[in-house]
């Protein structure tokens, strides 16, 4: 049982804290949002120089061999900084799938430059009718001569607009789940870009009789790798949310101490003190769940998915609670765009909509409970 960080991990955390303080002020963040530059963004290049892009990948595929804790440290810092760079969507998720499924040639072509910061990728798994279910998709992949033909629609493909290629899930004729690399300039691929309410860059994709060569196929049975990758993504999201929760709590506490009404600081009112403590309780419990998720990544699939579902559901509730309280305790100011905590609040509430929400994950835990009882 050990909750401490190694010296290297403490250094990593310190480096990230400094980086966030220097490079991600509210103004700098606005600039980044106005001109997303993909892999060319200066902050992304700094990530590359610091080794952050190599960190979450094993040494066999050219990474630094960081573990779940390293990823947790990074994601928590990105959450604290409310960083718009697509670390999870453009690097970790597609990179993990390439590392798991790609052969040497595919990794050389797509993964190595990804880790070097030369390009970014995206993962297209979500579809309109499937909600959060990565397996219930209707995009199809059919054999076409030596290659493949893909048809279908994908929604909420994060970072597609900055990606050199998308990893696309598709149903095969035999019912299995295939995974394909689709370069952004493929004929028949069209993209509709938009921002989400929490400032993420996303796209809907239409794949209209896309023709792919055989080397675009990463796997004909990608379900297990996709589950493992989503589990990793969920653990990472929990850590990111904890980082954002920390800041939302701190900013709210600072505001309560500084804002005066009825001749006294708001922090002197007991009803507000207790609300603030409730936020703190949620934060600490969510932190525990994020740790649980991180330390469950290496377990057997069932046990891993059960614990991570529990953590994601728990963090989803805690994040919403803290966001709502942060707005309420800031009063009218909390409703304004100008007040930075409102941006954290949006991210914290919408965090639940990524990779499965509270209901999605509670159902999983609930089914598990029935099966073991």
């Amino acid at each position, binding site marked *: *049982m*050990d*909750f*401490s*960080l190694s010296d290297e991990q403490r250094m990593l955390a310190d480096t990230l804290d400094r980086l966030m303080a220097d490079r991600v002020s509210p103004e700098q963040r606005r600039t980044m949002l106005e001109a997303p530059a993909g892999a060319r963004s200066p902050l992304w290049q700094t990530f590359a120089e610091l080794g952050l892009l190599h960190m979450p990948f094993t040494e066999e595929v050219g990474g630094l061999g960081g573990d*779940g*804790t390293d990823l*947790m440290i990074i994601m928590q810092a990105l959450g604290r900084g409310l960083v718009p760079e697509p670390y999870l969507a453009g690097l970790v998720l597609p990179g993990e799938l390439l590392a798991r499924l790609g052969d040497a040639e595919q990794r050389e072509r797509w993964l190595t430059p990804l880790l070097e910061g030369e390009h970014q990728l995206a993962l297209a798994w979500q579809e309109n009718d499937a909600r959060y279910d990565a397996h219930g998709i209707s995009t199809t992949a059919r054999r076409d001569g030596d290659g493949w033909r893909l048809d279908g629609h994908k929604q909420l493909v994060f970072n597609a607009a900055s990606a050199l290629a998308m990893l696309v899930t598709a149903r095969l004729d035999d019912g299995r789940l295939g995974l394909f690399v689709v370069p952004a300039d493929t004929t028949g691929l069209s993209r509709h870009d938009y921002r989400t309410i929490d400032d993420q860059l996303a796209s809907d994709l239409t794949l209209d009789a896309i023709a792919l060569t055989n080397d675009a196929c990463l796997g004909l049975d990608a379900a297990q790798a996709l589950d493992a990758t989503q589990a990793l993504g969920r653990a990472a999201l929990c850590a990111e949310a904890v980082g954002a929760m920390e800041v939302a709590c701190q900013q709210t*506490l600072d505001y*309560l*101490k500084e804002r005066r009404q009825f001749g006294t600081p708001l*922090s*002197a009112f*007991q009803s507000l*003190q*207790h609300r*603030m*403590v*409730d936020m*703190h*309780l949620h934060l*600490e*419990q*969510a932190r*525990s*769940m994020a*740790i*649980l998720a*991180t*330390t469950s990544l290496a377990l057997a699939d069932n046990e891993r998915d059960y*614990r991570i579902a*529990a*953590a994601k*559901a*728990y963090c989803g509730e805690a994040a919403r609670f803290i966001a709502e309280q942060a707005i309420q305790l800031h009063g009218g100011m909390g409703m304004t765009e100008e007040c930075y905590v409102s941006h954290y609040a949006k991210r914290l509430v919408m965090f639940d909509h990524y990779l499965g929400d509270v209901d999605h994950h*509670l159902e999983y*835990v*609930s089914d598990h*409970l*029935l099966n073991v*009882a």
Partner: protein
Amino acid sequence: MNLTYSAEEQAFRQEVHDFLATCLPDDIRERVRLGRRLSADDHVRWQNILSERGWLAANWPEDHGGPGWGPVQRHIFDEACAAAHAPTVVPFGVNMVAPVIMTFGSEAQQRYYLPRILANQDWWCQGYSEPGAGSDLASLKTRAVRDGDHYIVTGQKTWTTLGQHANMMFCLVRTDPDAKKQAGISFLLIDMASPGITVRPIITLDGAHEVNEVFLDEVRVPVANRIGEEGQGWTCAKFLLTHERTGIAGLGHAKQALSHLKSLATRVQHRGRPLLELASFRQRVVKAELELMALEVTNLRVIAAARDGSVPGAESSLLKVRGSELRQELSELTRRALGPAALPFFPDFLHGDAELDDPAQAESAAGAAQYFNRRKLSIYGGANEIQKSIVAKTILGM
């Protein structure tokens, strides 16, 4: 970062498990399992077994006769005991007054009292709360007036848990009415057989005789029975409150209660199907399960911090608030799972030795009573609202 026990810790857990399987008397295990009150003799019998094994004084240092456990072992031990339906050690002697005597008592006091506690020769109770001093403990009024080598103590204590069995009481008294609130308080050890002491039962809403009122009418207490200096009582009391509270979440009990609830909801039928299949009910069980998972990791974080040398402070307030809420929710779900069977009330069975003919009735007898009894968890040891104010002050600086 990892959440797993070391090989030694796992071996220790097995050792505790084996001990409980062979040494815990069946009749005591069964009473605890069914939620029935233990007699004084039951408690002493079990604590003698623990004492013989050297495991009674779990948080004492070795040179005083403790097992030399760290926070992790103590946690493993508590959890195993709860899972095995072992009685909770009556804390007032071994866990409460003993650390105060070790820290603030004279050598003579240590030599006399500590071995007696270890041998279960004294039954201690706590004289803290008064009718006018609950959460605001420092406003206590029980007076101790010096008369030569004695104090003359007059006043009233209340919520004295298991005081009906006690022969000794550690007591906060006001020795200086002119000093400011906390400064005028001293810590006295009082023989319950002293003339002038009357103990009256308080029957709680579950029909139990767990707590008492203690009246002190000009009770003579030797000055030699004072722990620490005159006016140092509040320091002793505060020390006691912050001393080793990693067990405060009641996690072992919560785990045991959840596992019992799940098994109950699998057996109980709702329209011909197990109750657990009823979505609205299962949803609440799931929420409790999640809360327990989070609380367990939070508890381990606090234990690991204590192991690595930091003093558990306000984190124990967090654990107390969330732990008590969870245990209350579990008692609520258990009561509901019992359905109509929660209604019959057999106080002579729960609190005495009367037996029930119907074994099914015995299984469900304690459900509702325990639900009401568990309301105390968010009130005693500093009500949850007080805990929140402590966190606001000490962690958040509000």
